[in-house]
């Protein structure tokens, strides 16, 4: 280690001397591979084995990353090991990675590092990076070609010395319901300059409850164009200039690569460092961040998106496997009963035995497993040397090395069994539970700070003594330890912490249950309704609502919303016209323009105008007709109208008549056809039933007024009456009320004939 350090330092010194850009370009490409994720998402498994050595489709994850780095033309890789560093180094030493020509793998070991930022600071101190390097974590699967991204990075760097990093992104649509990407991470918002591909904004912890994100207005002021994406996936592959390391050293509080470093650079406009993006289209890249991404990346591998890193092509350390029809991969020397059904998209490892009548589908089975008869395995990941006895059921679970499941045991979706756990006979492990031989550490990482503080230290406290501050939690967890795993079971069921059960399904290996989805989509609908209500509230206050707001809603809602808005707008226009004594012609003009902008028919206009006139009639202080009523201020009119229907209705009728007389020209300009007149009657009817019940006793009289003023023709009224003939009794209230009037109209027309 020491000698290596010295040599590296000497090399670095040599590199420092020749700082020509040409020399830099010729330097072999280096990479930093962080063999520690500095998170606790894979607990309890990662208490016993580092994440990078967990098998992904029967090959340790780090092999995918190293194989890709080698194929991408990286000459030297520094593997930074922290938690379980000995295991990682031992593994690498025994693997073929140290014996590759043109590809050197060096390990850097440290035990007291607690974040990616610290790791990079340590690497900077070692002086081993002399040029552009690839920063990647050891749990990334990719098959992309680095050539183009690297070239872009170098060219940008030549033009602008502040372009320090190129981030690889890939299109991937997030789920609209769960607001998370298909890899189970939170929905990511990025603002990118479409021309220069500069990253301007990065937010992976957006507040979904509000449904809004906040952009700095300077972002819009300074950039001629930005495109905001939520359908891009961050691949966690970065091409960095050497300055990145020194930046980490300068800003000692940078811990997380994205949350601190990227956001820090984006916010910091003094130094002016820039981050750019490179989007990959045909190739694949994804990072395994949680159990869900483990599931999804495994399936992507089985579906060959990561070609050539697929089980049947030997890339590193995987055994010869044959691909059969329907995506079935089978290694050699498998003992499979004739009656066992192995379904599609299944990988079965070397030397595994499968008993009779067992059904396996969408699963990965490791090496040397023994599966009894009548076992059901669905969408599960079973690692090496697992023994599953007869009649077990496993759905969407992860089962680590050396687990023994006694006969009849059942694992519900989302269960994770850590190394060497034994599940007793007929024991049912509840959904989403995590079982380990080790007890749950009592320090809970609910806090972000804590997450960094204790996760990577490699040693974990297993004290069960009640901590003062965590007293409640501890008692809860120690109770949770009590249920044994059936007869002969060995292990502890971990209590669920960090956000509790509600959030567990988001990152679990099991698919999101159906009821959760419906629940979420209902919640989302409610949210949308709320937003619509907000809008209505706004528009009644007379504010103009631009149609940009409307675009947020669904298309179906749009048309409905539009007519509501239109009505409001017309009403606002009309009221203003009344107040300011605008000429009728001008009002017609204004309403026409509204009609065009909302794409409404003249029937809609007539309805809206009539509606606003009637509204006005109610609102007009009733003092105009009878002086006595000045005592009653207008707000009481509603109450009053109920109390003294006849007395007030007379006055209301008078009001209405006045208004209709004043504005009849406006109304008539939209009554081109008989249909529009009928529309008015229907509208009036609707009003009487719903929004303006005051009119209901006056229905027949106002109808008469309208007829007198030549606004409605008798044909329209008669046709309305005919239409209503077949309707429900409840609908016929007003027809009956105006029966006499209609009767009279009928007779009159007959006389004319």
């Amino acid at each position: 280690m020491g000698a290596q350090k010295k040599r590296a330092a000497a090399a670095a010194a040599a590199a420092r001397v020749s700082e020509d850009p040409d020399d830099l370009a010729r330097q072999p490409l280096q990479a930093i591979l962080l063999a520690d994720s500095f998170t606790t998402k894979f607990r309890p498994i990662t208490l016993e084995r580092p994440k990078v050595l967990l098998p992904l489709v029967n090959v340790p994850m780090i092999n995918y990353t190293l194989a890709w780095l080698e194929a991408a033309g990286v000459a030297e890789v520094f593997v930074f090991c922290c938690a379980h560093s000995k295991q990682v180094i031992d593994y690498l030493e025994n693997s073929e990675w140290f014996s590759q020509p043109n590809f050197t793998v060096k390990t850097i070991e440290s035990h007291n590092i607690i974040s990616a930022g610290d790791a990079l600071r340590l690497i900077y101190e070692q002086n081993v990076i002399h040029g552009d390097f690839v920063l990647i974590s050891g749990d990334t699967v990719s098959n992309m070609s680095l050539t183009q991204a690297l070239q872009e990075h170098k060219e940008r760097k030549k033009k602008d010395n502040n372009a320090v990093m190129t981030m690889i992104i890939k299109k991937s649509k997030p789920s609209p319901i769960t607001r998370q990407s298909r890899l189970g991470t939170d929905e990511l918002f990025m603002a990118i300059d479409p021309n220069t591909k500069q990253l301007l904004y990065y937010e992976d912890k957006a507040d979904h409850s509000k449904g809004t994100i906040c952009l700095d207005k300077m972002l819009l002021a300074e950039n001629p164009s930005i495109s905001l994406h939520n359908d891009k996936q961050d691949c966690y592959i970065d091409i960095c200039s050497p300055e990145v390391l020194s930046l980490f050293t300068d800003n000692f509080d940078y811990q997380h690569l994205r949350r601190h470093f990227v956001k820090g650079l984006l916010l910091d406009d003094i130094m002016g460092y820039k981050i750019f993006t490179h989007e990959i289209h045909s190739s694949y890249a994804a990072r395994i961040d949680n159990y869900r991404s483990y599931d999804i990346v495994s399936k992507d591998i089985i579906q060959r998106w990561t070609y050539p890193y697929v089980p049947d092509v030997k890339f590193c350390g995987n055994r010869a496997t044959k691909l059969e029809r329907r995506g079935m991969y089978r290694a050699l020397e498998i003992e499979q009963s004739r009656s066992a059904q192995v379904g599609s998209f299944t990988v079965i490892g070397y030397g595994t035995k499968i008993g009779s009548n067992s059904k396996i589908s969408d699963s990965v089975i490791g090496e040397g497993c023994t599966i009894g008869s009548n076992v059901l395995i669905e969408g599960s990941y079973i690692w090496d040397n697992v023994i599953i006895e007869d009649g077990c059921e496993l759905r969407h679970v992860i089962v680590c090395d050396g687990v023994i499941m006694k006969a009849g045991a059942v694992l519900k979706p989302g269960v994770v069994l850590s190394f060497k756990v034994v599940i007793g006979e007929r024991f049912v492990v509840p959904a989403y539970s995590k079982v380990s031989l080790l007890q749950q550490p009592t320090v809970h990482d609910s806090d972000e700070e804590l997450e960094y503080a204790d996760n990577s230290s490699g040693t974990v406290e297993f004290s069960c003594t009640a901590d003062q501050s965590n007293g409640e939690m501890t008692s809860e967890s120690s109770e949770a330890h009590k249920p044994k795993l059936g007869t002969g079971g060995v292990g502890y069921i971990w209590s669920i912490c960090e956000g509790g059960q509600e959030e567990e399904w988001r990152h679990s290996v099991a698919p999101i249950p159906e009821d959760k989805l419906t629940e979420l989509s209902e919640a989302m609908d409610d949210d949308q309704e709320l937003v619509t209500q907000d809008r209505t509230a706004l528009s009644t206050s007379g504010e103009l609502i631009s149609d940009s707001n409307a675009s947020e809603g669904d298309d179906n809602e749009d048309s409905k919303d539009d007519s509501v808005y239109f009505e409001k707008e017309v009403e606002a226009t009309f009221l203003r016209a009344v107040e300011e004594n605008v000429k009728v012609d001008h009002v017609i003009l204004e309403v026409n323009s509204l009609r065009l902008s909302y794409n409404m028919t003249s029937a809609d206009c007539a309805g809206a105008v009539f509606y606003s006139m009637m509204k006005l009639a109610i609102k007009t202080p009733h003092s105009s007709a009878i002086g006595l009523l000045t005592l009653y201020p207008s707000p009481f009119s509603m109450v009053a109208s109920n109390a003294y229907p006849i007395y007030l209705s007379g006055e209301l009728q008078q009001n209405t008549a006045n208004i209709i007389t004043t504005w009849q020209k406006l109304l008539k300009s939209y009554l081109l056809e008989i249909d529009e007149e009928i529309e008015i009657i229907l509208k009036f009817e609707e009003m009487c039933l719903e929004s303006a019940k005051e009119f209901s006793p006056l229905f027949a009289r106002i109808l008469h007024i309208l007829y007198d003023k030549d606004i409605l023709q008798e044909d329209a009224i008669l046709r309305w009456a005919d239409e209503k003939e077949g309707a429900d009794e409840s609908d016929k209230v007003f027809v009956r009320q105006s029966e006499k009037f209609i009767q009279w109209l009928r007779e009159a027309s007959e006389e004319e004939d």
Partner: protein
Amino acid sequence: MPDTQALVMTFLTSLKNATARQTAELLRSVISQQRVPYTNQAGALIDAVKAVGEQLIAANPVELAVGNIVRRVLHIIREEDLSLTTAAIGELNLSAVSDDENDDDRDGNTTLSAAAVAAAARSTLRPPSLQTLLEDTPVSAAVPQTSSSGGDSEGKTADKSSRSRKLKHDVIEAVNELIQDIVTCHEQIAEQAVEHIHQNEVILTLGSSRTVSEFLFAAKEKKRSFRVFVAEGAPRYQGHLLAKELVARGLQTTLITDSAVFAMISRVNMVIVGAHAVMANGGVIAPVGMNLVALAAQKHAVPFVVLAGSHKLCPLYPHNPEVLLNELRSPSELLDFGEFSDCMDFGSGSGSPLLHVVNPAFDYVPPKLVSLFITDAGGHNPSYMYRLIADYYSADDLVVQRRAIAGN
């Protein structure tokens, strides 16, 4: 032999674009670095080549050319050893009974060794090579052990060491010849172009193959005027490249989609295509879409001609070729991951993917659809392939595995 091991490792890592020539060159260096014992030199060489060959084949079983070359080299070692042994025996006989004729000597007088040789030949069930029959060279197959017995009867150590050096030398010479054959196979095939392409014909091909393009260029150079239809060869669209090359050489070219092949085939005089591998039964492993072209050609009685260098002849019979000898490539060649990412959200529903994209690289064309094979040795019928293969490979090497060595 750390050096060869390193070479093997490099080769394995670059196997994605490995060619037959590279395999042969690698094996040549393996042979030249292999130290040969005094007795049973051929056996040692065979073991060494087999050990490396096994690794190479296991690395990418779909790349049949690698396996072919390994078997060819093994065959070369056996042949060279045999010719040396027979020469030695002949020498011995000559010195013993110098008056008699050579052929009679060998058949009659060397009773002991010849009997053993004959028994060995029968046990290996190796048919007499057509070439040796025609060239009237003596036929006597031998297993490596006979060489040592032959050597013992001679009893001269100096001679033995020179012979061991000679064997290695001869083998390397022969491997060099093989490499030369692989390099020049395109030209040798192209030489026959004028015999097959006639004036004003319409030729159809699919995808791109160097052999096919050289073949067409050769005909063009001989002042044949003809037209070429190129099916683009989705999803890799190598036909586009071929069309470019053909136009650059001044050939009248029409580019069509793969699905238009059937519509165009009635206007075509001959289909000329390349192959990934030719199996022992005369079946062809070819770029995907080829079976469709072959069926269309058969329907309209258009000759379906396959060009293949002799290194593409594979001594194996195809069992379940659509699956076992195929290579399923990444679905990203067919569709854009980003656009379809919502179809592959396994996080909801039953968790099993509803969308399955299959992108096979190869098609299997059964021998009955092939009218003619043109190899560097001339034109052949599909039914003749097994004879050709018997010339190039020895039956012992069909299974290149350690178990086979243990059996030996």
